[in-house]
């Protein structure tokens, strides 16, 4: 069959089935997610390596910091729930519901980012920089800002992506599948936070 016939749609009968019975865009997102999981895995293993090898690793996270982290966790997990509800609405054809819950998710993501930046600023004011801090192992700052910064970048870029997709969905450029595909990314960002919290914060609580 000629290429011309294929492009004109005459080859529909001989086209391969969709891999894994999902849209190719969704498969691409899954492949991106597993590669990103390996990136975060490498970051967290590097963090664990440095932390384990340093006898004077700072255990300085006070109760106020842990409360802040608990609030951030609550907000991020709640944003996953609102994203689920938004996706469900999009799949059932409820456009306004999908938009409402997607934008609620974006707002929750931005609140999370604001709380995170507030915590960063308090640490910077306390004298923490990439290669020095007042409490102990000099690499604490680089590893802390590296891991949490990578996660924060994912949250901010996820909020931007969801906004773009939601606006496109409103105009009819994107469909419910696109909302669902980007919800996968958002849930992944939530999932990564579940490992960042114990590794970076809870194992370094000031007792």
């Amino acid at each position: 069959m000629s290429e011309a016939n294929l492009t004109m749609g005459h080859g529909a009968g001989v086209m391969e089935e969709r891999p894994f019975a999902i849209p190719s865009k969704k498969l691409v997102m899954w492949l991106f997610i597993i590669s990103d999981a390996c990136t975060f895995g490498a970051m967290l293993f590097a963090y664990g390596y440095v932390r384990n090898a340093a006898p004077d690793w700072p255990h300085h996270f006070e109760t106020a910091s842990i409360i802040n982290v608990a609030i951030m966790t609550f907000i991020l997990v709640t944003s996953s729930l609102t994203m689920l509800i938004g996706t469900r609405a999009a799949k059932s054809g409820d456009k306004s519901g999908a938009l409402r819950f997607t934008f609620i998710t974006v707002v929750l993501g931005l609140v999370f980012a604001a709380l995170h930046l507030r915590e960063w600023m308090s640490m910077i004011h306390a004298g923490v920089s990439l290669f020095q801090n007042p409490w102990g192992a000099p690499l604490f700052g680089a590893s802390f800002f590296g891991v949490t910064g990578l996660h924060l970048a994912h949250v901010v870029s996820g909020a931007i992506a969801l906004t773009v997709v939601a606006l496109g969905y409103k105009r009819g450029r994107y469909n419910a599948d696109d909302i669902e595909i980007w919800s996968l990314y958002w849930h992944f960002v939530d999932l990564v936070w579940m490992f960042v919290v114990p590794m970076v914060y809870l194992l370094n609580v000031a007792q």
Partner: protein
Amino acid sequence: MSAEGSLKTDLMVYVGILVMAGLQIFMAYHSPGVIRMLVVAAIQAFLAIMFFMHLRDEKSTLRLALIPATLFVLVMMNMVWADSYRLIHMRPFPK
């Protein structure tokens, strides 16, 4: 996303993940241990992948394509620990 799964299931998973997050904070003050905390985090991640990301509703071939390969890479990263423990005791590299 398939039609399976209900909002009730989503809410139960949401509450479960939050309860486990609270459990981790409790453990941080009363019985901190990296393995215990990471086991709880892995359970949270499993719930998020299966229910929030709806991987349980996809074809089993997709699960087989994604999960073992990712786990293999993450498990292989554990080879760093031997060197990390060597470093904390300032031992030289074995000859």
